């Protein structure tokens, strides 16, 4: 079972990573843009059990660290996404108010996206990563949240179907 899940999930993660790096990163979107990989990982984390969500977060964070545009030390995104994946699943998993409707998942993903970025800024400050002026950070955080809010509803059906394909659940929305 685990082998089957891994063999399907790995190419999906790699494909999303390639789309992020080769397509989404081509555009310098106003307000900081969005990370399709982050939205993907957070969506899957909402739909998964805590231990699976932690592994999903770890894998997504590792890929984000591999990205050339990752500013901080290698492992920073891995740690943050791991924690985010676990936390979002811990709060949302088993709560049908969240998982049973698309609005709940989108809300969770957007809020988690914002908290992940705040965590990045906070840990970046501890690790000596420059993130710009306070105003600039606020604008970027706001812009990223708006982008996540716009993009998540479009991507949600695809991501939930992929999740159902891998984990053989009936969670496709």
């Amino acid at each position, binding site marked *: 079972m685990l082998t089957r899940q891994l063999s399907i999930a790995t190419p999906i993660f790699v494909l999303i990573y*390639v789309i*992020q*790096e*080769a*397509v*989404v*990163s*081509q*555009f*310098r*979107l*106003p307000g*900081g*843009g*969005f*990370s399709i990989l*982050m939205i993907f990982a957070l969506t899957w984390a909402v739909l998964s*059990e*805590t*231990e699976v969500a*932690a*592994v999903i977060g*770890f894998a997504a*964070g590792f890929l*984000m*660290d*591999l*990205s*050339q*545009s*990752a*500013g*901080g*030390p*290698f*492992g*920073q*995104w*891995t*740690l943050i996404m*791991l*924690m985010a994946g*676990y936390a979002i699943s811990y709060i949302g998993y088993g709560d049908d108010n969240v998982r049973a409707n698309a609005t709940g998942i989108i809300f969770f993903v957007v809020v988690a996206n914002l908290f992940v*970025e705040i965590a*990045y*800024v906070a840990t*970046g400050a501890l*690790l000596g*990563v*420059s*993130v*710009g*002026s306070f105003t*600039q*950070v606020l604008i*970027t955080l706001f812009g*990223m949240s708006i982008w996540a809010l716009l993009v998540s509803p479009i991507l949600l059906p695809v991501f939930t179907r992929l999740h159902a394909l891998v984990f053989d659940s009936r969670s496709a929305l």
Partner: protein
Amino acid sequence: MRNGGRARLLLVILMVTSLFLITLDLRGVKVIDGFKQGSQTIMSPFQRAGSVVLTPVKNFFSDVTHLGRTRNQIEKLEAENANLKQRLINRKNADAQLKQLKSILDLAGTAGYKVVNAKVISNGSSQSFSQTITIDSGANAGIKKNMTVLSQYGIAGVVKDVYPSSALIQLASDPSFRIGARIAGSQQIGILTSRGTRSASLQLLDNSTTVKEGDVLLSRGSIANRPYVPGVPLGYVTGVDNSAGAVAQTATVRYYTNFSTLGVVAVVVSGSTANPGDALVPVKPRVTPIPTVTVFVTPSPSPTK
């Protein structure tokens, strides 16, 4: 919670792994660099393909973004026939890159820099609050870490990481970008610190000197021309902070380079033997008087029969 203990154990193991990775990276272990290098080597063909395929889409979005500013131009273009407009859109990208390249070569030629030209194949994600681009030339073309990168107007950034056939450029607009600056003419020196946008902050080093609006800033240069060659135009002063009690005067600077429209850049692989001084200061546009033609008409006498 079901399997709560197992999940927590897994979380702890993964956290320790993440912290282990951070520690290794901060200690400068080469294995981590190898991961990134390998990933970038695999990704650069995809980025190149993405750049080629998505250029028309990017141009479209760029046009939409600048809609307000170029309304008059768009209105004129709308008047033209569809065929010519289509051809214009197709050629626009190539022409813009050619123009950028010509300006870069003029700039580099005036200063005597030896440069390697490269196309921008990816704009880095802003998720990490950093501002970077990826170019399609790397170590194979002689590019090394910490080399100055030029745009058609002046500084574009500095080479942050080099891969065999691509390189990561830290833009001058990146919040962590710092450069020693010199004011053209007065030769006062200071430190230019980016703010994450096209504007930057200049801190003069000498409290007895002054700066005024319109002053042009050039790079001061580094030892052995790395990371910065001297004499590269940086920007111009748009505002001066004259607050009382400040140790040294500070000013707001606007970069010459528009970082959102970079299509072609040049990496300075070898600086000039002599400091170019103020030779690269951009020429201010001159106002050309429009000649007025006055026509004197003398009424001819009424025709006679």
